[in-house]
């Protein structure tokens, strides 16, 4: 059984077809890289998997179950999502993380400040970032905080949309190395970066 499967997905954006007969299977622990020019629907695939966009036809299956309005809330519990242009919210970083851990779907998880600090330092951010205001973080800092949150949630599926776009070369390498090192995680990566390309992931290339 695949961890993730898109079956015959068709989607229009206005009158223009965006995705046409797209089918792909990703096994548990598998890695999928989605490449293509801007506007070819790469990010839309991640939003389809999250149930934030619905296909005109075709199905999204997660662990063999077809995604629908009844199970979407529980399915999102299996995924973690980071995109290139995050809007995290307002308030202190740690308060925001605690709020995420307080969600009903996340209540079996416990927030560990030690683990958060460990990840912050691993990705080149000081412990004081936890006390910082989300609105005062730079694009690169915000992106790393979002990535750290997804890692703290320890999901089965990671949906990563251009997550290395605001990072320097060293941090990019560190990030790619960290995610590829997550043994049981299923990764779906949207990126133009050759670093991801070099990892030998299963790849789909979208075109207009």
């Amino acid at each position, binding site marked *: 059984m695949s961890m993730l499967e898109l079956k015959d997905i068709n989607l229009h954006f206005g009158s223009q077809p965006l995705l046409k007969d797209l089918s792909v299977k990703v096994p548990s622990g598998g890695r999928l890289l989605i490449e293509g020019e801007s506007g070819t629907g790469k990010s839309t695939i991640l939003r389809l998997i999250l149930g*934030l966009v619905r296909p005109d036809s075709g199905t999204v299956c997660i662990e063999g179950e077809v995604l629908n309005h009844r199970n979407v809330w529980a399915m999102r519990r299996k995924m973690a999502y980071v995109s290139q242009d995050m809007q995290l*919210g307002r308030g202190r970083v740690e308060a925001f993380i605690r709020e995420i851990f307080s969600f009903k779907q996340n209540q079996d998880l416990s927030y560990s400040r030690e683990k958060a600090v460990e990840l912050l330092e691993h990705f080149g951010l000081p412990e004081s970032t936890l006390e910082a205001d989300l609105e005062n973080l730079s694009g690169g800092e915000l992106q790393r905080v979002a990535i750290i949150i997804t890692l703290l949630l320890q999901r089965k599926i990671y949906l990563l949309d251009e997550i290395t776009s605001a990072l320097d070369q060293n941090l990019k390498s560190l990030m790619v190395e960290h995610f590829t090192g997550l043994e049981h995680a299923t990764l779906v990566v949207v990126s133009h970066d050759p670093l991801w390309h070099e990892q030998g992931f299963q790849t789909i290339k979208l075109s207009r």
Partner: protein
Amino acid sequence: MEAAPDIALVRLLLGFALLLIPLGLSLWLRLRIVTGMFVSVGRMTAQLFLVSILLIYLFEWDNPWINVGWVLLMVVFACGSAIMNSGLKFRHFFLPVFAAYLIGAGGVLIYFTGVIVNPDNLLTAQLLVVVGGMLLGNSLHSVIVGISHFFQALRKEKKRYHYLLALGAGQWEALYPFFRESLLAALRPFLANMATMGVVFLPGMMTGQILGGASPDTAIKYQIAIMLAIFTAVAASVSLSLFFTSRKGFDAYGVLKEELFRNDSRE
């Protein structure tokens, strides 16, 4: 204390002479508000004269059913105005906002008249119509701010909302920060207004009562009570409006429905 003298119509016309100053400024600075100014002043004058005629009859009849009907009509107008000014579609929002206003502002109005003022008959025109108008009128702007802030923020910060859903948030959990910020946006100006009342400006109800011959201590007590009532009505109406409208505003996947917004309302 005696009531203030009436203003003769000729003297009221002299009041309109004051408009020569903004008119001159508008022409000199090319503000292009002359037409707008005449339309607004004309509407204000005509509407107030019509209301005064209506009030004369409402006071003369003083029928509880007519008074309640009049308040309901005011609620309908207030809802229409709130929705039209929020950039949202009337048909999706009228019933939830009407219900919110009716419960929120209507409940506070009954408490104000029945418990605080405690007259023999709480359905009199003097209380129900006048205080109802004051309550609805003063809470309208805040309700517009609350509703439009909520839906426009959800539209503008769609990625933030989607991110919360993607992190496992339930519908209410993902909406909660937007709900909180919208309620604060609606209430904050009101809090600032209350904090400066009596120092920076004398409020309308109090001024009106003093001009009408009431003693300042009665006027102040009414003013304090009405401010508490308006603040509570705003908090209740905005909360209930957001609560009721948020039930209709999203699909089963928790995604905001784009068809809620009028075409002239931009993202």
